[in-house]
């Protein structure tokens, strides 16, 4: 059963039950008080009648002794006097001998027996269906004793009124229940809508669609739940995204690696096959042999770069004090000949600092960056290497005025096998692993690699190194 139905059912049950009990009590109480009032009225009236009767008896000097012979005159007075004629009553002695009666309902000896000269009594009885009477009895004082008076009052209307009230009340209850159910169902439907929304969204999440969010607002618990739920969905989406990214990177790496491995292999196998199975003229044979050689070199480059990448990636490096000034000077010595050959001016300015690290790896890092700068530059340009001491660590900066890197490629250049200009990199013997290696080396020294570049306006690479752990 739906939650909205449950809420509706529970609320309607409570409503009907409480209304039922409450109204029953109200009707019963008001009936009770009406009955009491009616009886009080009747008692009062009987009181008046008794006093009037006593007055008449007193005026006529009637006693218990002479009531036998005087009863005729008394009866005439009682029938002629309108006050008495309008009222139905019976007067009798203690023993039940009737003195006067115009009562249609007859006498009730039991009631008479239950009272005495100082008390009045009444009994409610139903003589025939639909008719309810109250029979009253009370003493009438004469100088020498008591007579007893009985009166009857019809209170059937009280009962029929009560019946009518119940009838009307049942209809009201039915209408309230019907209207209440409708309104309550509508309300609970509205209130439970956020729950249904959450349910729908979570089903979508479970199916692997991570984009939908629960559009639930408001500061109540459901609003909070929806907000938490959305946070959770965000976290899931982020995690899944990260996992997918990692898987894609892995896949890209594998695909690129296979491509980088198989391309030179194809050439080597193909040209070797050609050489061994066909008579080739000198030029063609040289070309084939040359391709075998250059592609073989390319494979060698690839394997060396991959080895370094693996070594660095596994953190297999010793932390030793590295003199950064000496490192920069050595980089200058190594790079100078290649720079000069291309007509480039290399200037190095570095501050001395001792950093914990692996000097061979750091040398590779600097050399790679200088090589990249050289490859990107045209003859006549200049390459600047600076080393600055930072509060915590050391900053290496390599700038060139070369061709620059397109902005949209900046994010990808440290990915393994990524090449901005593939044919040019190829021609210069690159495998697309240089910057990936630099990034790993920097990471090993708790450092970061930042690139600032303008197309045609040169590139500046900034490496901030903190140095390896405690070593």
């Amino acid at each position: 059963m739906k939650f909205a139905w449950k809420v509706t059912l529970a609320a309607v049950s409570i409503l009907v039950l409480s209304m039922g009990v409450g109204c029953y009590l109200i009707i019963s109480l008001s009936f009770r008080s009406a009955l009491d009032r009616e009886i009080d009225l009747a008692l009062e009236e009987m009181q008046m009648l008794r006093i009037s009767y006593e007055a008449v008896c007193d005026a006529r000097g009637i006693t218990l002794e002479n009531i036998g012979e005087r009863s005729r005159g008394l009866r005439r007075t009682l029938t002629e006097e309108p006050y008495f004629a309008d009222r139905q009553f019976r007067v009798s002695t203690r023993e039940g001998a009737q003195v006067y009666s115009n009562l249609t309902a007859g006498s009730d000896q039991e009631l008479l027996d239950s009272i005495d000269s100082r008390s009045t009594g009444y009994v409610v009885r139903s003589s025939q269906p639909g008719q309810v009477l109250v029979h009253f009895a009370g003493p009438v004082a004469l100088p020498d004793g008591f007579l007893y008076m009985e009166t009857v009052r019809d209170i059937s209307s009280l009962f029929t009124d009560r019946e009518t009230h119940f009838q009307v009340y049942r209809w009201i209850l039915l209408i309230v229940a019907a209207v209440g159910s409708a309104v309550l169902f509508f309300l609970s439907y509205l209130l439970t809508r956020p729950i249904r929304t959450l349910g729908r969204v979570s089903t979508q999440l479970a199916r692997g669609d991570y984009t939908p969010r629960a559009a639930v607002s408001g500061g109540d618990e459901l609003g909070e739940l929806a907000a938490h739920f959305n946070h959770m969905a965000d976290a899931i989406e982020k995690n899944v995204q990260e996992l997918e990214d990692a898987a894609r990177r892995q896949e890209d790496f594998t695909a690129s690696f296979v491509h980088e491995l198989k391309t030179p292999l194809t050439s080597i196998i193909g040209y070797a096959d050609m050489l061994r199975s066909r008579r080739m003229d000198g030029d063609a044979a040289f070309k084939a042999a040359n391709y075998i050689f250059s592609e073989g070199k390319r494979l060698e480059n690839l394997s060396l770069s991959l080895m370094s990448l693996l070594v660095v990636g596994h953190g297999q490096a010793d932390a030793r004090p590295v003199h950064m000034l000496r490192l920069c000077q050595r980089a200058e010595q190594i790079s100078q000949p290649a720079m000069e050959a291309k007509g480039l001016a290399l200037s190095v300015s570095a501050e001395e600092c001792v950093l914990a690290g692996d000097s061979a790896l750091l040398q590779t890092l600097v050399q790679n960056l200088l090589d990249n700068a050289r490859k990107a530059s045209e003859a006549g340009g200049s390459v600047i290497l600076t080393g600055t001491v930072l509060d915590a660590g050391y900053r290496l900066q390599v700038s060139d005025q070369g061709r620059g890197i397109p902005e949209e490629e900046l994010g990808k250049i440290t990915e393994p096998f990524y090449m901005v200009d593939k044919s040019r990199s190829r021609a210069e013997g690159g495998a697309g692993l240089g910057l990936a290696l630099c990034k790993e080396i920097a990471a090993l020294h708790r450092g970061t690699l930042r690139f600032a570049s303008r197309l045609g306006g040169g590139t500046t690479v900034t490496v901030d190194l903190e140095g390896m752990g405690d070593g």
Partner: protein
Amino acid sequence: MIKILIVEDEKPIADLLDMSLTAAGYHCDCVDNGLAAADAVEEVRYDLILLDVMLPGSDGFELMDYFAPLNIPVIFTTARGSVKDRIKGLKLGADDYIVKPFEIAELLARVETVLRRCHKTDSLLTLDDVVVDTQSRVVTKAGAIVQLTAKEYNLLLLFLQNKNIALFRETIYERVWENDYMGDSRTVDLHVQRLRKKLGWQERIAAVYKVGYRLEVREP
């Protein structure tokens, strides 16, 4: 002359394909990116396209959309050898799929097969008075039918597709028997002997010392 467009961004491989296919008697043009390939296809009516999958700028799979309506047969040459990639390539309408690294003999055989299937080449292969009808698989010599076993027929086809090329015994074995060569050369030798005898090609199919055999055809 059959015209083949080679779309390959790796110069050594493009040259390799060019040299091999030119030697086999095809005319080849090379381009190194997708855009140039699209331009080239508009200018020249090619009979076959050899398409690399990993190209700078665009993916070879994307180029397929461009080539498919032109009804030019396409063979993918790629380093991506996974079943998923092969299926993707073939579903896009490629006629064949060659995974790098490949051997020249395999490449030539596949090119030949695709061209023949697409009726780009004559279904009749002729050398001297020997005629091979590749559709009905009937071989005639001076008009008379020569009875060949299936293996002998495939062997003959392999020689005709690789004229003047020394075929290694293991290459022959792998292409004709479609099995890995286990070092037993007598099967190959026996079949070559029978083929020579049936066609009277004792001189044509020359033994190459320590290598295998070569079908020798004087260049016109």
